[in-house]
């Protein structure tokens, strides 16, 4: 995945919302990241730091909540944790599975600094 592009989009949205809401200083940005998105949390944190340098968001912290993947096999209904978008069912080895969680990628909230 392209963490820098994602980080820049996080910064863009957080800045827009903060200005709309009259927030003068952003303390933290919360994002939800599914483990199937292929995003490497460390790389995203690093990219975010670079993306917000000398910007309105400077010093804001990125908080990543990593969401585990889950899937259900359409053949035998076994629920399991898939390794990718395309995984074999551990019980019957079918590949026809429905992914429930793990594809999430969204900005959940921003937190202002005390009194700002």
């Amino acid at each position, binding site marked *: 995945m392209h963490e820098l592009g994602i980080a820049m989009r996080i910064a863009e*949205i957080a800045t827009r919302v903060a200005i709309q809401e009259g927030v003068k200083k952003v303390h933290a940005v919360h994002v939800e990241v599914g483990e199937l998105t292929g995003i490497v949390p460390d790389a995203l944190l690093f990219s975010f730091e670079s993306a917000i340098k000398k910007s309105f968001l400077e010093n804001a912290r990125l908080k990543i909540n990593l969401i585990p993947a889950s899937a259900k096999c359409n053949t035998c209904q076994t629920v399991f944790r898939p390794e990718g978008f395309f995984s074999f069912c551990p019980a019957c080895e079918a590949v*026809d599975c429905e992914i429930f969680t793990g594809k999430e*990628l969204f900005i959940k909230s921003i937190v202002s600094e005390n009194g700002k």
Partner: protein
Amino acid sequence: MCQTCGCDEKGSMVTIGKPVHFQPQKQEIKPDKSPKPGSTQPMAGLRIDRPVESKGSGDAREIEVVENLLGDNDAAAAENRRFLNDRKIFSLNLMGSPGCGKTTFIVKTIEALKGELDIFVIEGDQFGSLDADRISATGAKVIQINTGNGCHLDARSVGKAIKELELPENSLLFIENIGNLVCPALFDLGEHFRIVMLSVTEGDDKPVKYAPMFHGAAMCLINKTDLLEHVDFDLEKAQDNLRKINSKQKIITLSASRGSGMKDWIALLRKEIQASKS
């Protein structure tokens, strides 16, 4: 370089031709009000302020945002989908190996629906405009995308082509992807219906060998059935393999060049278009 499949996207020259059409049509096109690529749409209109535990003077506020962060291609695909939905245009992404019969199939579909539906085509090929020439000979409006060293169409180039085509409302858009059973599966173009074509000369084992492609398609067309008696292709085995990979997939067997099975396809297409509008 394309980071998904390693094909050389940036170094190559993706070229989008000019629309080709025998009888230029005058169409009224609504201005494009969809957001620019890279923008994101809120998943929900939710915005709740709530105090957050804090020390010191004044409270910190947590402001709920809940906004999707799409990757570049997904953002462009979402924009395409919005653009097409606004105009009630039904779109198909047709994929399959080189030579499986995609272009012949599109030509026959255009001929079968002449006078009933306005059909427009985006032709993806690595080089040249041979396929676009075949489509334009039917009278349908077509635009050629040449990907150069790229091995798949992406949502951004398709978005540009969609706008060049000046599609009228309620028309049908065919996107013929690059002949390839691997990379095109990974790129959402913003289409409504994804079709993979498998010709009997390729072998009945292809669904399991190129599983992501067959897994992601809503329908599989088994083409060139007129050649079944000449090749070692087990139709039942192929259908079993397809069901193993995608139990919900619709399967139609046909011979686009000879015409058998085309009626089933046209009936299904009409049904899908109807369903998309209700």
